């Protein structure tokens, strides 16, 4: 190989690597990200069972039921809709009825959301941003809750 060819092949190699990385990134953006929904969106969105999504809203008052071991079921609600959620694991410290929560997981065939992670707000001044925004849109956001 001449010097020039050598250099070209190196540049081609680098470009190939960058191309592969870019392709991978695009693929991952399409496949490995999850959309965020509020209960009100769920009715229209028709999320297929098995697709990973995030679901946020308020933990409905009186909906938390503790089952066997660390099994918990509760409902995530906003003003328009409520979605039943089941979760196995430890709930975060600040998980409380009437408070904002974001869960991540998939819907089962029956429309129940099977969460594999639950995030609650981290102090009383903080609410998951998506939840706060959506609740503001729905006009039920109360800034100061005690």
């Amino acid at each position, binding site marked *: 190989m001449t010097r020039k060819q050598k250099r070209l092949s190196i540049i081609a190699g680098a470009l190939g690597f960058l191309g592969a990385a870019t392709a991978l990134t695009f693929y991952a953006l399409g496949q490995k990200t999850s959309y965020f929904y509020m209960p009100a969106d769920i009715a229209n969105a028709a999320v297929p069972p098995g697709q990973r999504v995030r679901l946020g809203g308020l933990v409905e*008052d*009186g909906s938390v039921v503790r089952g066997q071991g660390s099994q918990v079921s509760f409902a995530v609600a906003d003003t328009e809709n409520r979605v039943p959620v089941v979760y196995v694991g430890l709930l975060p410290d600040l998980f409380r009825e009437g408070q904002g929560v974001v869960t991540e997981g998939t819907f089962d065939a029956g429309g129940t959301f099977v969460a594999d992670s639950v995030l609650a707000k981290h102090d009383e001044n903080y609410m998951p941003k998506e939840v706060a925004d959506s609740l503001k849109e729905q*006009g039920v956001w*109360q*800034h*100061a809750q*005690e």
Partner: protein
Amino acid sequence: MVFWLFLALLTIAASLAVLLPLARRPQTHVPASAHDLEVYRDQLAEIERDRQRGLIGESEAEEARAEIGRRMIKLEAAGTEGSARASRFLPIVAAGAVLGVPLLSWGVYATIGSPDLPAQPLAQRLEKDPRDNTLDELVARAEGHIRANPEDGRGWNVLAPIYLRLNRPEDAVVAYRNAIRLLGSDAARETGLGEALFAEAGGIVTKESADAFRRALEAGGNDNPKARFYLATAQAQEGRLEEAVAGLTALMGDLPQASPWRGVVGQALARAQAELGAPVAGGPSSDDVAAAAQMNAEDRAAMIETMVASLDERLRDNPADADGWRRLVRSYSVLGRKDDARQALERGLKALGADSEAGQELRDFAGTLGLGAVE
């Protein structure tokens, strides 16, 4: 005075930092290339060290030396820049900076600083004459005293109702418990404890709270409308509506005509009766269970309304309570009673003075609740 002197000293120090190098005779100029050469010479020395250690071979070292040599030659070929010269701008820039630093800093500080406001370390504030203390400071002093003498039952007894009034129910619970532990149980303390627990639980008569009210009745007899009212409320919350109605009816009968409790008790009674009268058909279905849950929530809402009403009442008597107005406005807006919230805001602004600081804060606060400004 000392303060201003200090600021002046700081300003002088800052100005000197600018001024001194300008006043001093400049150091002899060292061309930039001399610094580069220093680095290249060190690189040559490093190659020599590496070669001696055997980290690189002789030929590699030779090549590297040649490369560094080329860099040095290039550097010399580029020539050395002209020697130091005084800038035409020197006087302008120097004068601008020497004047600008003090002027800018004093100007900015004059607009944003609070030079008249002394520092207020907490320890120092608590030591001053009690007559100058604000209510908050008095409470803090009492707290300090109680922390030092945690076995002083009378201290706890004084603090407890104040906490309750200041809307610090957790502290009130602790204070009432300590007062009861040290001074013994009596009707007033147990009633207060019950009320504090009720407030702490966010408007629900918990079992603990009900127990306290019961002890209050045992200790002080039946002439305690507050305890009886809360106990009836507890029964209503648990769905034991008949008992609640019976209790409230009895209480209503015992209350003198002028009692401030008549209104609240009457409302609660009416509500309990209404719920009791609700038709119950057939066996319990899932719908019924859901409805019961719903009723409970309504019950709770009714409870909150009662509390709001009594807050409203209190503010009519004692309107100079900015915190109270805030709570009232918020409560109405949480309950969705926007008109009432707006009215409360107007009343609050009138009571506090619309242009006062407290009034301003109340207005801002109302703004965050989505209540538009009122004129």
